[in-house]
């Protein structure tokens, strides 16, 4: 008898919970909250990615996937940088639906230098100045349509810009 009662009340609780959730959906609380939470997650500073020492780990921490080289990603950078503290680099792409562009230097103590979020309506083209510890490959990653595309170039550094 007791068992039946508790079973009954258990079911009743479930029904109530279900009703509560349904009520929340009905009020539009949940559908409103979910996109907001997602937007907040996307807007967060990628702390973990900026702690990774090597390039592959940084890309993984930032995007959770790997990039494929693409000739649609164009990087404009000097062959030789006389001063590693200021290396002007710009990147542009003809790819559509670009959501972010990132810059990495493989031999820097922290590989990831900068990542730029590109909302719809902003052109997929960025110019900035980076520091380079020594001669190494600089990689530009373009995130377009949920996929990653990359371009790399070796830049020779005469005087390093990350201490030493």
């Amino acid at each position: 008898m007791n068992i039946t009662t508790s079973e009954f009340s258990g079911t009743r609780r479930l029904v109530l919970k279900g009703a509560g959730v349904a009520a929340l959906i009905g009020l539009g609380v949940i559908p409103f909250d979910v996109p907001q939470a997602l937007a907040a997650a996307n807007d967060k500073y990628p702390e973990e990615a900026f702690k990774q020492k090597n390039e592959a780990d940084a890309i993984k921490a930032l995007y959770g996937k790997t990039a494929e080289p693409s000739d649609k990603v164009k990087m404009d950078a000097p062959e030789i940088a006389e001063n590693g503290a200021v290396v002007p680099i710009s990147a542009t792409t003809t790819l559509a639906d670009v959501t972010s562009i990132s810059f990495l230097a493989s031999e820097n103590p922290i590989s990831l230098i900068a990542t730029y979020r590109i909302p719809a309506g902003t052109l997929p083209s960025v110019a900035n100045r980076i520091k380079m510890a020594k001669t190494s490959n600089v990689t530009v990653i373009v995130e377009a349509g949920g996929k990653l595309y990359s371009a790399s170039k070796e830049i020779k550094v005469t005087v390093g810009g990350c201490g030493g």
Partner: protein
Amino acid sequence: MASSIRVRATSNGDTTEVQALIQHPMDSGFVKDAKGEIIPPHFIQVLTFEYDGKPVFVADWGGGVSKDPYVKFAFKGGKKGDDLTVSWIDNKGATDTTTAKIQ
């Protein structure tokens, strides 16, 4: 105090080109001073450009960005005389913000 942000936004009618120069040490935390002591990390982490209440460009930066950073980008739209708001926050929680008129 004068703003740390110098920004120039020019519209050609179709797109607005934005160039910004910010005064900031951008210490990576890997450089030693004259006494051989590590200069602690101090760099801008997030730099946001807003137009018409919406972000048009957001930069997430590490210590690998050069001192007194410069950045250039462009977005579609933007009218002459409209406001573009630029703000940054660094790893120590310091912030600065400025508003520029699109030219």
